[in-house]
């Protein structure tokens, strides 16, 4: 074959492969409001012209069920490397237009290849899931494929950040690959995840449930907590992916990217929380008054809202923030909040991201529900995660730090690097009302006017114990600062004390 002819032959083959599942399938994809896999990778995720594709010419080798006559472009997945804001990433995108994005062995092995290269290169892995599931014709081969992915998701965990963007169906065993990654993005009306779909549930259990209710984007963002980020469109989701990556190092041996410091738009004053400890406020406003450019990038915004977690920068350095949210459930710790915080803490610890903990919590949520849901087992995860974490750990006590929840919220006892309290801090075994009712139970019962006597004792307890000074005297907190001094103090802490993680490496198990 002449060179010219071989080049022409190549171009013909290339253009056929680049078309994916062909015009009809692409039209169907568009009708569902979805982009094609190639558009997602090349236009929405990666920097322009940065995509370096691999394995476009890979083919399956199945002969059964007429598969030998079926040519599947790229075997239903696009894989390769590219840059996001000029930083390299490994990427795969399942192509629903090719055999429904179904996963066969060749498809899986393409993904395996980029995963192994991500591990070697020490770069983040971004997966875009849009697949009908296992390719049934390939039988046990496709199960092997899933297993290989789960294994690598686990082995990569804690070494490089892994991000999953669910942009279509992701059902059955397939859900576990994203579930093993660090962050899952979902998009309204496009993402659907479940182990068994509505049809099976109807047949087996007689329960009627829509796809959206069962495993739609908001279901996973708010009820199950499987999804960390919810977006209204694919473009919005990819912008969030880029923003997330901007806080993360490429791998666990690197330091997160530092930017130019920007002061917050509205710095904190000295009167930022309500006088009355029973009154709600949103801790997100406080966070925005501390961090660079008042820019707080929240993770799990809709799930377990009684605790707030997310990324921000302090003097240009990325930090992970964990804060009780008095606005919801009074900021108590419960089963879901414990899981949410513990996983986030462990992620940050994997990737050298210092922690800032903002405390205002009355304790654990009481109730049979919580006890039977395993609040002991789940609550223990926060203690474990904070104690294990060896990145710089800064804690600010804003108001209530009561009982076991005080200990759990990164107290000095769990190895905090630096603990500061505002003058409004109350580090105590419990709130004044509860404490007075227990300590003076007999005296209150015997008093001529029990209510007046109780109030007297409550006031007494409050005066004596509901403050930061008892803990400060013991050295359990390092300093007492006005709220307006918080940002400057934290910046000093971050620049003068411990700088990097010092502990053993660990993976980020889904909690």
């Amino acid at each position, binding site marked *: 074959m002449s060179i010219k002819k071989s080049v022409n032959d190549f171009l013909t083959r290339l253009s056929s492969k680049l078309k994916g599942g062909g015009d009809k399938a692409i039209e169907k994809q568009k009708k569902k409001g979805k982009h094609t896999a190639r558009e997602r990778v090349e236009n929405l995720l990666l920097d322009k012209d940065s995509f370096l594709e691999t394995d476009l010419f890979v083919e399956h080798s199945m002969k059964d069920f007429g598969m030998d006559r079926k040519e599947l472009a790229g075997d239903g997945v696009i894989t390769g490397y590219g840059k996001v804001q000029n930083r390299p990433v490994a990427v795969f995108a399942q192509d629903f237009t090719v055999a429904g994005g179904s996963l066969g062995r060749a498809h899986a092995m393409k993904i395996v290849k980029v995963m192994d290269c991500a591990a070697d290169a020490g770069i983040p892995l971004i997966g875009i899931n849009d697949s009908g599931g296992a390719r049934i014709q390939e039988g046990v081969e496709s199960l092997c494929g899933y297993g290989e992915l789960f294994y690598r998701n686990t082995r990569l965990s804690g070494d490089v950040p892994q991000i999953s963007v669910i942009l279509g169906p992701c059902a059955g065993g397939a859900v576990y690959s994203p579930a093993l990654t660090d962050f899952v993005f979902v998009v309204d009306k496009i993402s659907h995840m479940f182990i068994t779909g509505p049809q099976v549930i109807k047949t*087996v*259990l*007689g*329960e009627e449930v829509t796809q959206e209710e069962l495993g739609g984007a908001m279901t996973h963002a708010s*009820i199950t907590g499987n999804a960390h980020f919810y977006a209204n469109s694919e473009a919005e989701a990819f912008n969030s992916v880029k923003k997330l990556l901007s806080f993360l190092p490429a791998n666990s041996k690197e330091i997160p990217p530092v930017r130019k410091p920007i002061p917050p738009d509205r710095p904190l004053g000295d009167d930022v929380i309500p006088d009355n*400890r*029973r*009154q*709600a406020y949103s801790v997100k406003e406080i966070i925005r008054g501390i961090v660079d450019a008042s820019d707080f990038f929240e993770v799990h915004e809709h799930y377990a*809202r009684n605790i707030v977690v997310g990324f921000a920068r302090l003097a240009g350095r990325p930090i992970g923030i964990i804060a009780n949210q*008095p*606005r*919801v*459930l*009074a*900021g*108590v710790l*419960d089963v879901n909040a414990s899981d949410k915080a513990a996983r986030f803490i462990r992620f940050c610890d994997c990737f050298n991201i210092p922690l800032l903990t903002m405390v205002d919590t*009355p*304790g654990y*949520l*009481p*109730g*049979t*529900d919580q006890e039977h849901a395993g609040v002991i087992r789940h609550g223990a995860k926060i203690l474990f995660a904070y104690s294990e974490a060896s990145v710089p750990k800064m804690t600010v006590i804003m108001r209530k730090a*009561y009982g076991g929840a005080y200990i759990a919220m990164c107290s000095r006892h769990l190895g905090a690097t630096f603990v500061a309290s505002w003058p409004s801090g109350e580090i105590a075994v*419990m*709130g*004044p*009302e*509860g*404490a007075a*009712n227990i300590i003076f139970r007999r005296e209150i019962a015997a008093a001529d006017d029990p209510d007046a006597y109780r109030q007297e004792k409550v006031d007494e307890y409050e005066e004596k114990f509901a403050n930061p000074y008892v803990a400060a005297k013991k050295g359990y907190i390092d300093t007492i600062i006005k709220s307006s001094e918080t940002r400057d103090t934290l910046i000093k802490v971050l620049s003068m004390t411990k700088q990097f993680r010092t502990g053993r490496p660990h993976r980020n198990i889904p909690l």
Partner: protein
Amino acid sequence: MEKKLDKLTIDDTEYSTEIPEYSRKPYEGVPDPSEVRAFIPGTIVDVKVSEGDSVQPGDVLLLLDAMKMHNEICSTIQGRVKQLHVKMDDTVQKNQLMVSISSD
């Protein structure tokens, strides 16, 4: 869009805060072992006991066909079959009462 705030009491202190829907579920209680209920919807394919029979923990009361399996429905307590609420070929819904047992 400000939601109306609820009251939540912790250690005798009442906080004004938002209580999300999922935290409002009433406690349903521990299941009563004298009421044998269907753990899954299905069809009764065999009834092994009659009313008045005495039963021991582990005795098979019924076979419930569900998910292509014949599930043995056993008594967890010692007692007497007080009432059979189902017969052969009945289809049952999840949580439907199938057998009442009176503990001796």
